[in-house]
């Protein structure tokens, strides 16, 4: 697993993918920082982090599109599947590599926090909870998109599928307030990753939220392993 994690992590930076992901993420988050914090002379970091969380929806497919689809397309999966590494080890290694780059992107936004800390006030405990929700949400998106990369035949198809699925989750979030039927709104609220993040943005350490995000990721990782195993047996 560690071997796969290391290779994938290096792979992000051997190719332009890692640089594109970090570059776009930091460029867009800089624009958001300017609009939400600098221009308005505000120290409202939770608002800023909440808006940054939409970037996972847009950029998570960039991180996951190659992970499994390209192995299948280029038949390099033959090397991995005939080596002594287990299938769960391969999937988890790849997932952790994507999460590492995602965490690196989140860590780099610490520069913005530093600016606010110099010119204003930062509440470290609240900020830590904000960031926890932010990263967990990214982990959940990444797991779902990794599963779709395993289902797709090429990285491009994987990216389109992942982007579509991420958009669907976002649309579900928009529907929460529009749906009239109470039970339907409740169901959508329960499923929505964005609604789950609300508590974290308010500085509340929500164990239900942590459990939901981790379970969401775990379910998709298990589905990925099961799908790949099924493909081998077929």
């Amino acid at each position: 697993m560690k071997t796969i994690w290391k290779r994938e992590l290096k792979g992000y930076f051997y190719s332009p993918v890692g640089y594109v992901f970090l570059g776009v993420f930091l460029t867009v988050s800089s624009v958001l920082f300017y609009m939400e914090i600098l221009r308005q002379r505000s120290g409202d970091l939770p608002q800023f982090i909440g808006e940054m969380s939409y970037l996972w929806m847009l950029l998570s497919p960039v991180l996951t599109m190659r992970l499994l689809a390209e192995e299948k397309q280029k038949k390099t999966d033959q090397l991995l599947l005939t080596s002594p590494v287990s299938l769960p080890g391969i999937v988890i290694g790849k997932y952790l590599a994507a999460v590492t780059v995602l965490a690196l992107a989140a860590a780099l936004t610490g520069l913005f926090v530093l600016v606010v800390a110099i010119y204003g006030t930062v509440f470290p405990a609240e900020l830590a909870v904000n960031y926890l929700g932010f990263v967990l949400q990214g982990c959940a998106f990444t797991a779902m998109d990794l599963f779709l990369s395993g289902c797709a035949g090429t990285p491009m198809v994987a990216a389109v599928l992942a982007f579509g699925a991420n958009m669907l989750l976002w649309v579900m979030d928009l529907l929460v307030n529009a749906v009239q039927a109470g039970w339907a709104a409740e169901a959508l609220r329960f499923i929505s990753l964005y609604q789950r993040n609300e508590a974290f943005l308010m500085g509340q350490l929500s164990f239900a939220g942590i459990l939901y995000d981790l379970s969401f990721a775990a379910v998709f990782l298990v589905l990925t392993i099961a799908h790949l195993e099924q493909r081998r047996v077929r």
Partner: protein
Amino acid sequence: MIELKHVTKKYGTVTALEDVSFRVEKGQTVGLLGRNGAGKTTALNVLTGYFPPTAGDVLLDGMSLREHPRECKRRIGYLPERPPLYDEMTVTEYLDFVCELREVAANARKKHIQEILELCGLEEHRHRLLGHLSKGYRQRTGIAQALCGSPDALILDEPTAGLDPAQTVETRALIRALGKERTILLSSHILSEVQQICTHAVILKNGKVARAMALDAREAETQLRVTAAGDGKRIQKALRETEWVEKAEIVGTGPDGAVTFRVSGKRPEGNPAEQVFMKMTEKGIPLRELREEQDSLEEIFLKDTE
């Protein structure tokens, strides 16, 4: 030792392999032959654990691949039809990654990679990106990765496919050198290649084993076609009295009473046809025809797969 035991592999309703069993003994180099779609690549993929068989099992030194996948996979090096290379890595980075995958100890890795680079003639290209290598060197790197972790058995799927003549000769020489210390199973369409490299051959037809044979033994056997006039039993007796002859079968009788035999046995030191001629002369049997008859691998292949 590698053994396929009653292996069946189905893709949906299509049966790619049906009750396939054969063994590759330690130190043998075995060629897996068959027409397109005969199940060669499927057999190799099952053997290397790329996918499991629908029924049956693969044994490596008596150990079940189904029950001990990790142990078994450590003992096999596999070169698929298309070498599994990451174009963005250099040759050394790639081999280092494969060594790590195959659990080669970190302190032994550098020396091990150096030995593999030397063996495969890749030293000069060690820092080149895999994506920039020619087809021949990509194939060599594919063989090099199969050697990582010093596996006892090498499985090579069409190792010379698509190479130019010079590269083909080099790759064959490399495989021959590797075969001195390892068990090798390779698939190929090129029968002359199998003849040159392999000690044994297994011919697949429609997912079944049509024949498994020793190529050395075929070389060591002599077969003659003898036609002589006279009593068939007398001629047969005379033929069997010839020192090297083990079998003398009647294959036909001519309208003039001449009888034709297929005579076979271990190749003697002298000329086998001359010895038969001398025996017939000694017994006073008039010979009509005497010629050496040897089924080439091509003939055997065509007979078995038609």
